């Protein structure tokens, strides 16, 4: 059964079908939130919120629209709401050690792998917008067309954003390697 067909059944009142959508999407959404916030608890809560919102606003799902884009748009809004309310994200000024501690809380194996650790710290030092576009296109391997739908922009624009983000990431990574 396709995601879209399942979502239509949820919309029509068969809420139990939401658990199949949960099984299909929760890990990806959790990783989306985790890699954009580097906060395990938050990743858990925001993933949970996304599915609660999916159930609560099921009637707004339009037949014919792609479920994946719809659910990711919801996830983005949830993250944006959270970000607006708590501007506590680690910025460029945060110390490497502080980020390292945060990463250790996410998964203690991260810091054991030097390359993975530096990658995440570099990612962390990008703007949330850059992180987001990298997570969607690269980490989650969504097609540019799909990401353009989620971000409500053109494919060309997504491509430019991805390229800029990769270059920014490269610069941050090289900086860290020098330390």
């Amino acid at each position, binding site marked *: 059964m396709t995601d879209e067909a399942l979502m239509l059944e949820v919309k029509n*009142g068969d*809420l*139990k079908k*939401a*658990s199949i959508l*949960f099984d299909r999407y*929760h*890990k*990806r959404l*959790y*990783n989306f939130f*985790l890699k954009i916030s580097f906060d395990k608890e938050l*990743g*858990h809560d925001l*993933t*949970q919120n996304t*599915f*609660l919102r999916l*159930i*609560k606003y099921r009637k707004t799902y339009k037949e014919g629209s792609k479920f994946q884009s719809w659910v990711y748009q919801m996830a983005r809004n949830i993250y944006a709401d959270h970000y607006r309310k708590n501007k506590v994200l680690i910025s460029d000024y945060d110390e490497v050690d502080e980020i390292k501690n945060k990463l250790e809380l*996410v*998964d203690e194996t991260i810091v054991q792998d030097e*390359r*993975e650790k530096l*990658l995440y710290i570099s990612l962390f030092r990008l703007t949330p917008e850059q992180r987001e576009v*990298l997570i969607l296109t*690269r*980490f989650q391997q969504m097609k540019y067309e799909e990401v353009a739908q989620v971000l409500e922009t053109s494919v060309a624009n997504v*491509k*430019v954003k*991805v*390229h800029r983000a*990769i*270059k920014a*990431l*490269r610069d941050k*990574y*090289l900086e860290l390697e020098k330390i």
Partner: protein
Amino acid sequence: MEDKKMEELMIDYIDGRLTGELKSFVEKHITKTEENRREYESLKKTVALINADREHEPDSSLKLDFLNNLEEAIESESGKKRRVVKLRSENYWQIAAAVALLAVGILGGMWFNQNQEKQAQMLAMQEEVEATKRMVMLALDNQNSASERMMGVNASYELSKADTDIINALVKTMNEDDNVNVRLAAINALSKFSDQPHVRSALIASLEKQRDAIVQITLINLMVEMKERGAINELKEMIEDSTNIESVKDEAHMAVFKLS
């Protein structure tokens, strides 16, 4: 060509999106100078790093929390339609039969003497109670649906007097049900029959069985409400138990204080 445009082409090249002339153009550019080569290598390395990224596993609590939330959502939905749902359920016929019997009883009573009327009424009421009881037992035993079990617990409220079967089923639900909300509902239902000594002792005994903080705290508060001094020992054990979280121990402390 601008540097920026060139870098973008390099990323496309690394991604394997280029073909033909454009591809050989970029290849030539890369090998032209040492600086270009370094630029290419560093971008390639970054893309490789990103590609090697792995997915992290969420805790199993994510799914459990979701299922609880889903149950709640379904529950509140069916709450809105409870009357309809109930009438549609298969117990409709049992209830209808009971009501019919009651009606027959009343009509019969009008025709016959008062004694007979009373007997018929009694019989009908008994039938109705039996029907409700059967429904409760059946629902509580439904292993597949927490909302069904929840409905069973809620239906038990309709019984003004609970017999041993119902009490035992509710106690079993309180202690063994997988779903926190169902366990909480069972505790609430049982508290209604707390004037019966064996219900009180089952509630006290449940203190040490429960592992969820919210259930533990509900039970502790119930002990205070019931002024159940017999629970003091169990409460003290909860304070000592290092596996209990602080807020549970705090509640237990307060309860011991209030009951002593």
